[in-house]
């Protein structure tokens, strides 16, 4: 089986699982407890936090249940904390549902949301962003790497643009952390990361932030500096720290991306959807006049696992909002599939993938 759906989720690394298990066995105490076991657990938790802080070069880290919760906390929490300052928020039309739907809810509460359009590459235009900024804009939220097509937003440039303004900048970096380099001299004010996209565990993520303090959105015992109540999972925190550190050893995917791009461009009726300057680990293509799920199941028979656009929207019948937004031609729209690489992907996998695709393609076109 060749797993090429790493943008949906990744297989946890053995070392990460080892950490999770060991911490559960040895440091299972509640880190808020006053006894010695609690102290040790807290010590470990803080070491994990420090390691992630250093890795990301951010001042604060809150452990959460994953990307969706981090995005909710970043948006709803910051909106609540700074609503006296203004009620305007800017985002892009191609964001993840955890951003778009949270913002929709905020709209119902009286916030105004500007959704920037994107071009055929999935890029927003910096002029559009600049023109949309107002005196009452409190937050700009953009993803670093688009989960469906791999578009990379110039977050360092935007961070610099917003640096001396009263507008905070949130970046959903779920698809980019551990995969793309960050300009550590121009980090955003809030950063969402998730463990299971970097060979960590599902149900685990973090929100990093500098110079901004969101309000808590869930009530309870005031853990995580009052920002995220609920007993902190030390095993998840430690596993996340380890997974993030281990991303430094991951292979680079640019070469394979280029190879596959050339390969697909040479196939008739196949269109590469991902922009040329996109993230190396995501490659979306579309096949004319076909449903993507047919190709997905065809490839699965050949032992290759890929997905239609994104895992989150692949179960709904409608075309994904990202595919709509970048204006994929009608006859290609339903035939989008996404191939995404991970740390375990090998050269061999890419070759097999090509072979399998040729097989499936011939079969389908023969019909």
């Amino acid at each position, binding site marked *: 089986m060749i797993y090429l759906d790493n943008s949906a989720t990744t297989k946890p690394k053995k070392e990460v699982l080892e*950490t999770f298990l*060991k*911490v559960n066995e040895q440091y299972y105490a509640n880190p808020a407890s*006053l*006894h*010695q076991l609690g*102290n*040790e657990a807290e*010590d*470990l938790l803080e*070491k*994990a936090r420090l*390691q992630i802080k250093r890795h990301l070069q951010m001042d604060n880290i809150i452990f959460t249940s994953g990307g969706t919760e981090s995005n909710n906390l970043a948006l709803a929490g910051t909106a609540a904390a700074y609503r006296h300052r203004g009620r305007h928020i800017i985002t892009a039309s191609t964001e993840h549902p955890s951003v778009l739907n949270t913002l929709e809810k905020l709209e119902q509460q009286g916030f105004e949301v500007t959704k920037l359009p994107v071009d055929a590459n999935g890029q927003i235009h910096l002029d559009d962003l600049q023109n949309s900024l107002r005196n009452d804009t409190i937050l700009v939220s953009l993803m670093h790497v688009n989960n469906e097509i791999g578009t990379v937003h110039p977050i360092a440039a935007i961070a610099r643009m917003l640096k001396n303004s009263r507008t905070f900048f949130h970046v959903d970096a779920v698809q980019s952390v551990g995969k793309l380099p960050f300009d550590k001299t121009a980090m955003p004010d809030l950063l969402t990361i998730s463990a299971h996209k970097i060979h960590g565990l599902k149900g685990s993520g973090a929100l990093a932030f500098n110079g901004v303090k969101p309000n808590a959105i869930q009530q309870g015992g005031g853990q995580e500096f009052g920002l995220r109540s609920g007993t902190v999972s030390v095993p998840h925190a*430690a596993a996340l*720290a*380890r997974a993030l*550190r281990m991303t430094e050893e991951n292979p680079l995917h640019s070469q394979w991306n280029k190879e596959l791009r050339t390969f697909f461009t040479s196939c008739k009726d196949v269109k590469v959807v991902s922009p040329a300057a996109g993230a190396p680990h995501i490659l979306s293509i579309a096949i004319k006049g076909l449903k993507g799920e047919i190709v997905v199941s065809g490839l699965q028979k050949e032992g290759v696992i890929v997905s239609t656009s994104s895992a989150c929207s692949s179960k709904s019948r409608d075309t994904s909002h990202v595919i709509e937004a970048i204006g994929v031609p009608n006859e290609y729209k339903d035939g989008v599939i996404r191939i995404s690489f991970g740390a375990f992907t090998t050269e061999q996998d890419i070759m097999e993938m090509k072979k399998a695709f040729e097989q499936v393609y011939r079969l389908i076109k023969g019909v």
Partner: protein
Amino acid sequence: MKTTQVLVRYGELSTKGRNRNSFIGRLRDNIRQTFSDLENLHIKSERDRMFITAADEKDMEQVINRLPNVFGIQSFSPVTESGLSIEEMKNTAMSIVGKMDTAGKTFKVSVKRANKNFPHEKPEIMHEVGSHVLRNFPELSVQMKKPDIELKVEIREKAAYMMAEVIQGAAGLPVGAGGKALLMLSGGIDSPVAGYHMLKRGVRLELIHFFSPPFTNDRAKEKVFDLAEKLSQFGSSIKLHVIPFTKLQQEVHKQVPDNMTMTSTRRMMMRIADEVLKETNSKAIITGESLGQVASQTLESLQAINAVTTTPILRPLIALDKLDIIGTAQKIDTYDISIRPYEDCCTIFTPANPKTKPKLDKVEYYENFVSFDEMIQEAVDQREIIQFPRVKENTFEDLL
């Protein structure tokens, strides 16, 4: 051009007559201890100054950052090594002066030409280097007598050594030069500050802490550990003696009327401290008491508590205001640790109305019914001794 050396000027010890050599030796040991993590640190001590040479510029940065914590140093100056040509010396001068505040300052260059083979004479070097700096920093004016900035150039065989910046040291005396004393460390704001003042006078510390499990918990102990760690950052390692105090405290409560338990508890602490003092060869007991702060710190209380021993009890904070003490605590970085909200053994059994003017004869009368000697010896014997700085904390390297 590189900076791998500092010149250290001694503090008060320059005036210490015949003890001078032992003071200098002590200072050298303390500097070694402070930088034990740096390899190949070379220390050369002379009669009125000391040179520290580090392996590279990165180590030197550590030295410059941490040297202001070492007592017994008046000031120090980073020394930059320059190639033996006027051109290189000009560049080095620029980089040295460039780091300093030059606005409205007076300036001069002085030259020591130990290498007589150097082809340029002294006045020529002074003129060349000085005018180069002045051209680039027009805000400087020349003054030969007591200038604000004196750029010193020393020409030797292989290189020229140049310096100008003067960084203030911690002053005081080298820790250990004044013998050893036992500090009663509660976990509050005052006692670490008292310890700091004595360290500055060259006194080496042993620490004693009274621990009353289960009434005080591990976090309270952790807090005291963190304070001890901070106090061990001033050039000398420190031992902490943790005394199990629960049994004694409970006994005092059984025997002594409520409003006098506080006085009596303190007397017990003092007696235990006196025993530890003998075992550790310390010469005095240090407390963080400040007159009038709380019931136990009135003159009457001090008298009643002091009566158990003839050992000198040093109270460096006795006449200081609380705000000044807090200021020092913040400066030495112990304040945030001290205000962590965990109970210590003094707060848990505090009576509602402790006597502010306890009578010594009454306290002695009530204590008379039990022999506390045995319990005191037991507490001393069962003490836990921890060395600071702690060897190594768990980094969880295998897990993270």
